[in-house]
């Protein structure tokens, strides 16, 4: 069964066309991540799925039912927000149980599901506290708990980690991944952070300007991007795009090389000068300005002694390079 199906979904605010002809299927139990730069329409798409916005045209199907005219509470979804959005006047328990109470579930069921979720999220100690007495990470766990107790057909996450600090973000990321494994529920997760997308997703949906650019598993998109935008958006540090530095490239075409596919070598294809060095311990990032005046990033594994100002030659295997035409589309037959 498909958890979610979007067919020709469009959304306009007045004359602004925000979502353009979105078609997408999310399978049962799949973790799908919408990723894209800010303003690409990913949050709007999530709100259309949740029913907080109406689609201007097209159909939204959740768990086999067309839900275009169904209010959010009856769509079988639960949502976790960026700003937690906990009810300030209710305790942790009240926050988690409110949705079930509104559904008219008996008290015994509510208590059971709330304590189960609290146990799963390690919130048992805080069950009678109010949101103002909790830390950011705890609040986000309560928000996740509020979603879990509803036992929805589809979980929606709207940039849930953006308000957390870096270390907490990683822990919570792992918790969400574990949660997905335990519940084996269908989840949709919106983020602008490509690391979250790569690490969490079964399926990544890359959006730009209200259109889906490419859909696929993280490694499919990484190894086989359909265009320059997807190639540049996934992977950190991001891919290098060169027009002039590599000889024999036809006019208008671009070559894309990932930083880890470049190596320092005595007789490389690209010559340049190191302008900046970032030493991360595990690996070293070199910023190199080529003789043709383009800047690229080289990721060297381990610790590298190269200093700023050094003249270097960079080598790459053409099999690892991507070629793009003037319209920024991938040229597939060229690789080899």
């Amino acid at each position, binding site marked *: 069964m498909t958890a979610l199906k979007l067919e020709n979904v469009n959304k306009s605010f007045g004359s602004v066309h925000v979502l353009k002809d979105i078609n997408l299927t999310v399978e049962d139990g799949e973790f799908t991540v919408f990723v894209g730069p800010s303003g690409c329409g990913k949050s709007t798409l999530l709100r259309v799925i949740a029913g907080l916005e109406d689609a201007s045209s097209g159909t939204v199907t959740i768990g086999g039912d067309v839900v275009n005219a169904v209010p959010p509470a009856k769509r079988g979804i639960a949502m976790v927000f960026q700003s937690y959005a906990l009810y300030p006047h209710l305790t942790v328990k009240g926050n988690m149980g409110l949705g079930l109470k*509104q559904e008219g579930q008996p008290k015994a069921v509510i208590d059971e599901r709330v304590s189960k979720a609290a146990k799963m999220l390690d919130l048992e100690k805080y069950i009678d506290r109010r949101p103002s007495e909790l830390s950011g990470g705890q609040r986000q766990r309560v928000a996740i708990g509020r979603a879990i107790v509803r036992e929805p057909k589809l979980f929606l996450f709207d940039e849930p980690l953006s308000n957390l600090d870096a270390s907490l973000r990683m822990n919570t990321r792992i918790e969400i991944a574990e949660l997905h494994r335990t519940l084996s529920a269908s989840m949709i997760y919106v983020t602008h952070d490509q690391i979250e997308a790569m690490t969490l997703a079964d399926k990544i949906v890359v959006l730009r300007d209200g259109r889906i650019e490419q859909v696929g598993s993280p490694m499919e998109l990484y190894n086989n991007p359909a265009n320059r935008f997807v190639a540049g958006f996934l992977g950190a540090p991001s891919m290098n795009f060169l027009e002039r530095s590599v000889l024999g490239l036809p006019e208008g075409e671009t070559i894309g090389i990932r930083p880890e596919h470049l190596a320092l070598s005595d007789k490389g294809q690209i010559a340049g000068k190191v302008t900046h060095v970032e030493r991360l311990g595990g690996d070293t990032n070199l910023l190199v300005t080529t003789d043709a005046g383009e800047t690229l990033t080289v990721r060297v594994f381990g610790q590298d002694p190269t200093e700023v100002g050094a003249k270097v030659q960079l080598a790459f295997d053409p099999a690892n390079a991507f070629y793009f035409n003037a319209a920024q589309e991938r040229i597939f037959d060229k690789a080899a």
Partner: protein
Amino acid sequence: MNKVRSATRTTIAAHAVLITYTLIALFPVFVIVINSFKDRRAIFRDPLGLPNEETFSLIGYETVLKQGDFFLYFQNSMIVTVVSLTLILLFGAMAAFALAEYRFKGNRLMGLYLALGIMIPIRIGTVAILEMMVSTGLVNTLTALILVYTAQGLPLAVFILSEFMKGVSDDLKNAGRIDGLSEYKIFFRLVLPLVRPAMATVAVFNMIPIWNDLWFPLILAPAEEVKTLTLGSQVFIGQFVTDWNAVLSALSMAILPVMVLYVIFSRQLIRGITSGAVK
């Protein structure tokens, strides 16, 4: 060390300014209260002196209480003020929520139209209002006053509250919608508690002019049984002779209920600020 000392100095300066202002603001009230406890001669001979054994007198209070209807006036004022405030806050907040929350055609125009009342004094329409009240048979009722005061207070209430409501997190309202709360519950349970400081501000702004108003009670409800306190106190002010003892006593007593209301609202205001610290 230097930093600490200069910080203390700033604090002292700030408090000096505040205390000076407080003294200036409280002085007239103080004069009214002390003089209400003095006999007529003492009021004129030594207006700033505290009442002593010789000059102490409750004659003013006796006159006021003997006037009989004073408690009725009191009650009328209280009813008018409290009911008007309730209606202003309820309808003002509802309109503000609609303007802040929902996208509909003419939203901005509607907001401007509602705010227009801030700039047009309602007293300009006194004659028309009186005609309306006469033809609806509401003259000499408290309802007439309540309706007028509600109309007078709504524009500013809508204006202030809609600005505050725009500041309430969309995520919170959406979370409520996903949990199946009705729009009414979202409004009453989630949004209103978060804009409580603004509600308190609006309440205080509206309370004082309503309580003190002489104009509309005089025109719309001059009958004995619906007189408000301000209008009732006027019996002691004559064209030739004014019973200052009675006037001052009536005024002193009129301060009390407003003060109680103010204390209630200002506590709400503080609680609102501290409990709003979510996120």
